[in-house]
């Protein structure tokens, strides 16, 4: 028994109910009740003009299976999540490795630089990317001035812009997930591999990478979930061209006042996230039993 367990078993009685009750009531009223209502609405029928017919139909969900347009949006959303997870992994791994292994006296500062963007709102950072990537933004004006291009490149208001923006916004999450695994890895293992004659690439592929897979899985699933549910960056960087589930939810709800369909899109997104969290927990459990087996 750990100290924590001991502390937890010490106190019994009716008090815990009173302690958690306020939060529980608040969550029932402002979290569970709204979601239940939304679920009910997702089976209603939309009547053009903003009204709803209180019935039970599956047509809002059926659109995702029958309508190729909405099927495409589901596919695009998943693809976007995968792309962003991939790029954050590629960029986050070297960064996390450096943070975990460095003996520099600026270590604390290097950490702060990774965490600081997390404390800066996504709107502000997306605005920064708009300044960099827009038609007369920094990249285009520099390339034009140096004569590399004749016409400004289209770097945003398309998919590319969304991927760049989301990769940057979510990079800290991936880095921190990888770093926590790499930090707990014994550097002696890598040294041993070197002493046994492995070169750097072999050491990485056969020692470091396999041992850091739990972090890779955690970070990727986390980033994937956040990327497919992101709204700010796809809206601002993607413009009207890029449609993902979250922007469809917003558009259907606020512009078209089609609450039933918006609700169905929202629950489709929620189902995707739910499946991922389920897979993630499975991975976590198998990862743990794998560690125990070692």
């Amino acid at each position: 028994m750990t100290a924590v367990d001991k502390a937890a078993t010490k106190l019994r009685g009716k008090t815990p109910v009173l302690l958690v009750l306020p939060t529980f009531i608040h969550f029932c009223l402002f979290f569970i009740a709204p979601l239940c209502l939304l679920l009910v609405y997702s089976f209603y029928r939309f009547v053009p003009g903003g009204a709803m017919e209180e019935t039970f139909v599956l047509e809002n969900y059926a659109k995702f299976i029958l309508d190729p347009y909405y099927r495409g949006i589901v596919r695009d959303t998943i693809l976007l999540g995968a792309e962003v997870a991939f790029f954050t992994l590629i960029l986050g791994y070297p960064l996390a490795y450096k943070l975990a292994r460095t003996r520099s006296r600026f270590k604390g500062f290097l950490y702060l630089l990774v965490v600081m963007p997390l404390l800066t709102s996504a709107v502000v950072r997306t605005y920064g990317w708009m300044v960099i990537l827009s038609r007369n933004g920094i990249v285009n004006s520099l390339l034009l001035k140096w004569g590399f291009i004749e016409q400004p490149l289209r770097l945003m208001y398309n998919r590319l812009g969304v991927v760049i923006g989301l990769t940057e916004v979510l990079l800290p999450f991936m880095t921190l997930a990888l770093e926590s695994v790499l930090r707990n890895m014994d550097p002696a293992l890598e040294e041993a591999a070197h002493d046994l004659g492995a070169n750097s690439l072999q050491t990485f592929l056969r020692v470091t990478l396999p041992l850091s897979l739990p972090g890779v899985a955690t970070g990727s699933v986390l980033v994937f979930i956040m990327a497919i549910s992101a709204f700010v960056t796809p809206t601002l960087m993607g413009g009207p061209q890029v449609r993902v589930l979250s922007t469809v939810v917003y558009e259907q709800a606020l512009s078209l006042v089609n609450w039933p369909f918006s609700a169905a899109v929202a629950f489709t997104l929620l189902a995707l996230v739910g499946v991922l969290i389920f897979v993630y927990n499975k991975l976590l459990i198998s990862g743990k039993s794998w560690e125990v087996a070692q």
Partner: protein
Amino acid sequence: MNAVSKPAPARPEPRPALPWRRLGEGLSQVLQNLLIALIYAFLLAPIIVVVIVSFSESAYLVFPPKALSLRWYVAFFSDSDFVRALKNSLMVGATTALISSTLGILASIGLVKYKFRFRDLLNSLFLSPLTFPAIVLGIAMVVFYAKVKLSGTFWSLVCAHVVLTVPYVIRTVSASLYGFDNVLLEAAANLGASPFTAFRRVMLPLIKAGVIAGAIFAFIISFDELVVTLFIAGPRMTTLPIKIFNYIEYTSDPTVAAISSILIVIMLLIGVFLPRNFVAA
């Protein structure tokens, strides 16, 4: 007399490294550091650019700025819409932080210090907003508030923000509580303290760092929250993130850069001081 110098203390000979190999290692070190620097540049580029642009003289985005000025800072604070939005955000954030901290501290004590049925389930429920897609909660809240006729008020915003921020408080306060020994509460009770006095004089001082960190997180999350707020804030309760969001969708002058820079500096200061404060206990 001083012909023979003392023999130098025996030093282990460094392993003879082939010069080309040493060069290769040095080169790979340089390349590695360059790669890290480039990744940092990518990560910090938007933030740095926003700060630089905010001091620009021109109303168009010229980079680097040709002349420096503070006119966009003046422009922000002389725009009554922006100032009202900032005030709304501060009020909502402070109220949310207060309520979240209170709820979160109580819930954490219950969850960490007691054992009861459904404890794990409740814990998962209270932490679930962390991974819950904000867009789904946004549409759920707008539907719900329309039904109960509570749309677009100060309290409708606060109630939604409390759901989003309680998990952060529970996480930081729980972390502090794991290090707290229940024996101290028993000792306080034996010495005649009422449960509330024991909490206030014994437990609270010891978990102070977690409480402060949780309250600050709650404030920041609420202050920055855009997605849920976008759905439920009526025209009278515009917050700063919404104002910025609407502004940059159609305009590109650096007014937004000015307020963004102020926020970045505040967050940086919090980032520098918060961990130290949190680690201290």
